[in-house]
């Protein structure tokens, strides 16, 4: 199986799907000649032409509004937010319109569209270019929210997202773009709404998304040498979330830790913990369910502070040790 980066995997999904389905087109800022802020659409203008790789003025509401209009008349747009932060500009197009049409028109109109959004901190891009807003998007019924952590999942989920009849927020993490992994050639999908156990363990269930999956897995390997066996679950899709897998896991381990980079207050860790304590897994909890999340502050520009604002490997290790040694 060929190895490629997370970024290449997403590009390959877009490329293949544009080849397969004429209705698919890209729309966004600087996605043509420049290849996008992270180079993800590099080469696609030459391959597919300006009709299908459409560059726009600097107006995110226009991008999402145009994508929604196209979707309503049968196209399959894939829009790009240069940074996830700018999604906040599009909340009317996305939250009030795209998320609602299928319901308000009784299914006679659908909005099969994908909005790609690179999120997360760690690149020194400061408060307006570093946010993790998945919890906010998860709160709006009608939107699906996916966020792959591996190249394999990224390609498979992108194909599922484009083919889904609903608006899908496709969250990419900037720090994952250069991570490598095996990705099959050709067509395969990772279903939306199915989580994956990335690592089996008996002592503690950790639910983490995007870059936190990578960090948690590293820590888990280290602690396995000391006899602490952590189970790591990547929901992959934030909404609809596959809580059944988490319930199963907690019934096995009796302990739960949810890790996300997004700010703690109102973050989706609370949603997962509520789902678990409200389920049959409650009777299996042998310690308080915990969360480890980003600090409730705008991401600082200063590199040291930026690092301190979100969970790092050492934070994850400390929290796992605290739970494993029964400190809570």
């Amino acid at each position: 199986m060929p190895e490629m980066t997370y970024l290449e995997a997403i590009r390959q999904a877009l490329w293949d799907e544009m080849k397969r389905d004429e209705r698919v087109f890209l729309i966004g800022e600087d996605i043509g000649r420049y290849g996008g802020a992270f180079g993800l659409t590099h080469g696609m203008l030459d391959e597919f032409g300006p009709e299908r790789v459409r560059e726009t003025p600097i107006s995110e509401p226009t991008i999402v509004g145009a994508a929604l209009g196209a979707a309503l008349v049968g196209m399959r747009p894939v829009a790009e937010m240069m940074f996830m932060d700018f999604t906040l500009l599009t909340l009317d197009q996305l939250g009030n319109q795209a998320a609602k049409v299928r319901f308000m028109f009784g299914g006679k109109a659908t909005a099969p569209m994908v909005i790609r959004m690179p999120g997360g901190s760690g690149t020194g891009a400061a408060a307006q270019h570093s946010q993790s807003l998945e919890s906010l998007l998860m709160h709006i019924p009608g939107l699906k929210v996916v966020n792959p952590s591996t190249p394999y999942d990224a390609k498979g989920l992108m194909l599922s997202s484009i083919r889904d009849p609903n608006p899908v927020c496709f969250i990419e993490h900037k720090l994952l773009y250069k991570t490598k992994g095996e990705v099959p050639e050709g067509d395969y999908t990772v279903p939306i709404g199915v989580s994956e156990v990335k690592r089996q363990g008996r002592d503690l269930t950790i639910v983490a998304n995007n870059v936190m999956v990578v960090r948690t897995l590293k820590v888990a390997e280290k602690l396995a040498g000391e006899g602490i066996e952590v189970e790591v679950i990547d929901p992959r899709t934030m909404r609809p979330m596959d809580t059944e897998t988490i319930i199963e896991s907690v019934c096995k381990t009796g302990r739960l830790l949810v890790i996300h980079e997004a700010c703690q207050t109102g973050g989706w860790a609370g949603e997962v913990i509520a789902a678990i304590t409200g389920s049959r897994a409650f009777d299996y909890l042998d310690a308080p369910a915990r969360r480890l999340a980003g600090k409730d502050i705008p991401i600082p520009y200063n590199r040291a502070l930026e690092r301190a604002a979100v969970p790092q490997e050492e934070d994850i290790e400390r929290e796992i040790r605290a739970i494993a040694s029964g400190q809570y």
Partner: protein
Amino acid sequence: MPVPFIMPKFDMDQEKATIISWEKHEGDTVRMDETVLTVETDKVSMEVPCPADGVLAGIKYQNGDTVPVTTVIAYVLKPGETVADLPRDKIPASAPKPEVAPPPLAEVSAAAVASVAATPVAVRMAKEEGVDLAKVQASGNRITREDVEHYLVEKVKPAGRVAVAATPAARRVARERDIPLEAVAGSGPRGRVQAADVAAFQSPHQPIFVSGDARPADVVPLIGIRQRIAERMQSSFQELPHIALTIEVDVTELEAARRRLNELAMKQSHGKVSMTALLVKITAWALKRNPYVNSSLVGDQIHLWRDVNIGIATALDEGLIVPVIRQANEKSIRQIVDALDNLTSRARDGKLTLADVQQGTFTISNLGMFGIRQFRAIINPPESAILAVGTMIRKPVVINERDEVAVRPSMTLTLSADHRVIDGVVAARFLNDLMLAIETPETLLY
């Protein structure tokens, strides 16, 4: 001004109550909240608490009288007040005439609250919240707003849902295995019971052997006193770190003293003085000198008991029972002998009450009559130590510095102590005190 004592209103729809009996009488000193009289409504009989500290005076109604609620039935004189200070009123000192109509409701409640010492704010709050001030406990000499608030909070406070801190998983495992969580020691933070604690718990209710063992046997269910012994001994031995120290004592002098005491008892036709009675007397003396041996570890506090209540392990057919000689340090040998006779005969007849076996602070177990030389006993919780007394035997011992040998009666005393509370040196000192008093009984006179 004397505090008026009204017939309280217990029920929303109650209009009158009948006095069943005055527990206190004219001129008696009374204390706030103390029961002064018992009354009966058409529903229940109730004890009526005193509204203030002072002297009861001006009782207007007698046993059997039926009185409308909120009527003043007596007064409480405060210090310096006399009967002359009582207000003159128009209510006759007999049962009210039937034509006396109960006052309108608003006045009733106003009268009710006015008769209790309370601040104006408290009175207003009580009215607004529909609180009967008579039920509110005052923190000072008047009911304050805080008292009413406290009452309201306490009234609605639900009883704790859970008695034991345990994780949900621990609760499930306990449920599945029918293990009482209260019996499981928690290893989690703040003593929280976790699933592993329950899993590791050997319930005394569960036989250690798997059921289904088909070998013929007479099966005795673990119930009643046997079950209680099993539970207590197991938890004591598992939870209390026991240390045991043994000392051998020469009983020559104590035996001689016992003979003399028995001659005395015979002359006065009293019961015989047993060795146990003498040991109780001596042990009580030694416990007073070594307070940690007469203590209980309660949570994170060591209670050094002021009373010395010595339990005597007594064998019955059904099992062991430990009747307690209370305040043994205050009793003469004569009183201890009588108390022992009384307890043992009632124990054999199965007539011991709960009070006879409670509040022990130390236990003596004597297996001497069975020829046991020496043994270690398990502490009887919540006590911290137990003395095991061996049999008395005559044996050759070196009696002086010239290494001369003589045959002397001797016995062993073994103290089992909770090492959390009692250091080895403390246990040793206690045993040395016992030895001193046994070998030189006049020490107790010193």
